[in-house]
């Protein structure tokens, strides 16, 4: 349900005039909700930024997510490749 909630919140922030991107842990659900920009990451539920105390991986995921901000062919759903 978290992935649905993220998408629904994201749509309302984007509608308010702010550019958004989200992390997705469950591709099936993000495909249904279709938020403007999402990066699907291949990690378990509870691990959206990959691994605890792995700042290098966390930063790479953030950069990959932020790289989608320039995309306006929404909904964008890309896969993060570690």
């Amino acid at each position: 349900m978290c992935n649905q909630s993220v998408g629904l919140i994201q749509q309302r922030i984007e509608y308010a005039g702010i550019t958004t991107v989200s992390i997705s842990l469950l591709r099936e659900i993000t495909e249904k909700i279709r938020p403007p920009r999402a990066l699907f990451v291949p990690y378990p539920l509870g691990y959206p930024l990959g691994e605890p105390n792995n700042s290098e991986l966390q930063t790479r995921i953030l950069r990959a997510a932020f790289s989608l901000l320039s995309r306006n062919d929404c909904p964008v759903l890309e896969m993060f490749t570690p």
Partner: protein
Amino acid sequence: MARLDDVDLVERLFLKGYPFHKYSPRSGDPVATAVTPLHKPLSACTVALVTTAGLSLPDQPPFDVTIKMGESSFREFPADTAPQLLEMNQRSWSFDQTGILRDRNLAFPLDRLREMQQRGEIGAIAPHHYSFMGSIVGPRKLMTVSAPEVAHRLREDHVDVVLLTPV
């Protein structure tokens, strides 16, 4: 990689029958299909975090995990919050919470944002960040009240970019 099959059986059966189509965007729905292009480089943008990890500060009321359809309220954190001080309340036990308990940046990467700001990759860190508790089965109030309220506050703070994270 997380798949629906990873979710425990009771929750998976629930998700299989859940009417996601009710909340999927209909064509022409101005809210659900809105696109806001970014008009400046990330290095000039103010960035905020919004998570559904159910985080709260020790002096804030925790999320009420007993509300059956899900709690749609949110908690606001100032930019100088130490992520590791945040407490986690979750209605859903279908995910492994131990990672976030070891490192809150796993869902609320405020320390990573600070590093990116110091390196000049992002322009500024927003004055406020937000957490919801994500397991909301009946999201109507989330969609009509609390998410628009957070969007309004982000606008007041002149935020350019929001990163959202589920758990």
